[in-house]
């Protein structure tokens, strides 16, 4: 399959001589037909020819990534998506880009050690665990030993790590109403408690708006499921927030003990804002909280 580009009047060089297709849309239609018929060998051959003939074309890379994912070749697809990232104009790749769906799906299908963003994931986790170790060494040991989450993974979304759901193959995003409802809270220093990691973006959103010196806000994150917490810690280097105690993390089976221990010092203000469903945690925490306040 070859492609003929449209020729603007100003172009002095004739485009590719073949007349097989006049746009990437047509190429896409042709590849779609091959994928639909499950003719994956021919599909791979066509994709290889395309990226060889048009190595600088983002459309070629996008189509190669998309159809290699469809053909069950996520590692090869990720090579193409990395090329796409290198090539693309700034700002042209976003959540709305049609490549996003395949890009996320391909990252969820390969082993985590084969992910292009593996280094960033491990660097973030390492920095965050090192910061956390100063306060919660036992929790850090448990986190290090925890397995990877099965239904959740920190993956790259065009330059930013996000949590993606393995079932829906989509990045997890807070609802639109979340951003609306916390708009005013972000301007205050009211301590916030997060009952669970959820999409991960809720905690990061609050942390982003609390780094200024005049707005020190305490954030408490509860997450019973260690693999989920571990994946969250891979998202971003938030070691600064952990170190200056803007973020206290209570994770795993020991979280209730840690909660009691920390609040019994009387140094931390009780949370005033709840994010998430506290039902799973609250009944056991009530005792601990009371104890902390009594002392």
């Amino acid at each position, binding site marked *: 399959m070859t492609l003929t580009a449209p020729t603007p009047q100003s*172009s002095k060089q004739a485009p590719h001589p073949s007349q097989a297709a006049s746009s990437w849309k047509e190429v896409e239609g042709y590849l779609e037909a091959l994928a639909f018929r499950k003719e994956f060998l021919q599909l791979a051959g066509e994709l290889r020819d395309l990226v060889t003939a048009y190595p*600088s074309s983002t459309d070629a890379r996008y189509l190669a990534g998309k159809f290699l994912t469809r053909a069950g070749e996520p590692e090869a697809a990720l090579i193409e998506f990395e090329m796409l990232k290198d090539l693309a104009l*700034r700002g042209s790749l976003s959540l709305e880009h049609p490549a996003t769906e395949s890009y996320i799906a391909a990252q969820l299908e390969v082993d985590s050690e084969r992910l292009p963003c593996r280094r960033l994931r491990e660097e973030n986790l390492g920095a965050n665990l090192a910061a956390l170790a100063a306060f919660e060494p036992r929790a850090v040991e448990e986190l290090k030993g925890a397995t990877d989450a099965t239904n959740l993974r920190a993956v790259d979304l065009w330059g930013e790590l996000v949590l993606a759901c393995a079932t829906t193959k989509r990045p997890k995003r807070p609802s639109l109403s979340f951003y609306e409802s916390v708009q005013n809270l972000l301007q205050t220093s009211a301590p916030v408690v997060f009952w669970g990691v959820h999409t991960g973006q809720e905690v990061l959103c609050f942390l982003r708006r609390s780094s200024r010196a005049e707005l020190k806000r305490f954030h408490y994150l509860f997450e019973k499921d260690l693999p989920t917490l571990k994946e969250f810690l891979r998202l971003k280097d938030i070691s600064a927030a952990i170190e200056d105690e803007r973020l206290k993390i209570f994770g795993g089976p020991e979280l209730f003990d840690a909660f009691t221990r920390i609040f019994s010092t009387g140094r931390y203000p009780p949370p005033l804002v709840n994010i998430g469903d506290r039902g799973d945690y609250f009944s056991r925490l009530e005792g601990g909280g009371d104890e902390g306040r009594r002392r």
Partner: protein
Amino acid sequence: MDYPIPGIKRAPVCSWEVESERLEALAGRGNLQDTLDALENLLGDHPASTEAYLIGGRILTRFGEFRTAFQMFAAAAGMAACGTLGESHPDTPYLVTAQLGLDEEDLRIQPRLARNLGANLEALESIEPELARRISLSQDPENRRIIDLWGELIVADPRTGKFAATSEKFTEEVKYDVKTGIPVAFCGVGSCQEILKALRLAPIGFLGETLPIYLFEKNLERLKLLFRLADLSGLIRERRLIIFGGPDWSKSMQRTFSTLRFPAPGNYLGDKRPYQPEFDRIRASIDISPGEKEEVLRYYAGDAFKNRLREIAAGRELPRVLIISILWTTVIRDMGARFEKGFRELGCETHTIIEETKVEELSDGFFLRSIGRFKPDLAFCVSYARPSYKALPDQLPFLCFSMDDMGPVLQLPRLVEQIRPADIFFCMGRFLKKQFAARGIPPFQLSEMIPPADPEVFHPLPPDDPMVKKFSADVAFMKHNWCDLDQNLKDFIRWYISDPKNPPFQRVLQEIVRKMHELVLADRGRVIFAEEFLEMAFSMLPRGGLPPEWEARLRTVVMEYMAWVYNYSFKYYFLEAVARADLKLRLYGNRWERHSALSAFAGGLLANGEELNAAFNGAAISLHIHAGSTMHQRVVEGAQAGAFFLVKRLDGEKDHLRLTDCFEEDREVVFFDSAADLVEKCRHYLERGDERRAIAQRMCERARREHSVRSAAGHMLEVYRGHLKRLLG
């Protein structure tokens, strides 16, 4: 899969960001000619790269070279892969600026705008001619320009350079409404994008049912702008977009809702204040007056109606029959029409209630008004019964021909309290009859019936008829398909057992489906009835069972597995055997071209009527393969057309609708037991044409005599009369 990309894996030939910066720097020095030269080189080197054109468009816009910039952007939009360029693309502001810097004529979209306007006005003229005339005479609005945003037309404001974008919040709100079946009303055209988005989002149901979107807009200029923007003619004709516009918008609204066919809006978007007082009248106008309602009910409660029933029972009067049909369920619509014809042929007066468009939701008032005007002596419907039509007078007998084991009346745990003594259920087979009996229906309100066919539609054709030649085949099978076994299973899993809210239950379901599928794959030609699957599923439940709502869900999952996976697997198994035997096989119906092994035999969708009749005539052998029953509507139709049938034999006791109750084995119809037997019998009867034709002729004669629409309507009338006699003493 081998996917080597030698030498280019990690070495991009050029980074577009770097190229962009280089050209921007050149442009920044203000030398247009140098920039153009560099741009030409870039385009020459990368003629198939969208980015080269985008960079060109952006830089030329900066130089004020709008015409060439727009050409560059148009080239990029034309060549880019689907969806890669959109509102949020960083070059969008440049594209908008370039277009607003040009005259409208230069955008080359005028013919498209004129085409849209013409098509929309023509469609509206058939519904609201005065409004269409007024819009065509109105001016174009000031301060609004239509521009091309990556191939899609949108409205922009030339003063501010801003274009109309829809917010994510709006999209979410509309998506929620339209997906949950809430009709939306737009108060004003707004930026036009909102309404276009809503029209795109409005889902079309499995059977084609959908929702209307209402638009209230007094301002004719704005309506004209919307009409130029997109071709909405199909949506206007199908009433998926209903416009109340211009100075007479209120009268038009009254006229529409007073037909009692359209649902009231559930959510109003935009500024509703200019229309508010009139909105409050919509609810009232979709119902009939209490006086009119009372008059109808009084007639049915009175002696006049009782006397009419007595006359009908005695055979001195023929009943007036109200056929309640449904537009988007083909089988109900077609079967309803057949019975209507049958009753008419017997001399009964008939009237059919049916939606005219796929957005309608006939109100209770509509039913009562129709009944009040026609004064029927019985209501008839296929697969639906009184519980679906609560407005019907209690005394009006309801006759239901139940053809479907998933019909709505079969999903109610108890039915007897929701029907009336004069109602009768005509069941297609013993299985359905048993199901109604289990819901408390007394035996004297139950009867069995074979689906009839219309001998005027299905009849033998001469062998040299061109249509017979067109549909010539050794073996034919007429039923819709979904995809193939693997894909059917995947789709079933995606639709029915993906329940992220309830992981433990999902795991149980997955395990049950895995076991059911193992059972099917162990012998794909084996008949497995619902009872066996259900028994297996419930035996696999964890100790303590499931909460009642999950039990119902499990039952649904099992039935849907049968519908989407097992039943297809059963058919595929025999059809694949015929395909392997090198016989000229034809598969008619939807989606056979999607089947990985049988796509070569796909014959396409047939129109129910002339084409279906010709296909039965053109095939030497017609197959009936069904894991639930040997009798089927298609068999009666084929028999009347003179088809020779080979039918998969089922265990007589479990066969839901026995073909042998209607036709004699080997004399009128032939059964096969296994795939090998099927292939052998196909070969046998293909070689012995006379023997085959004689059997087919005997079946044809009997089917035309005993299973015509007239004889079926006559049987129904006979049962109805007997039932009335019993009730009225």
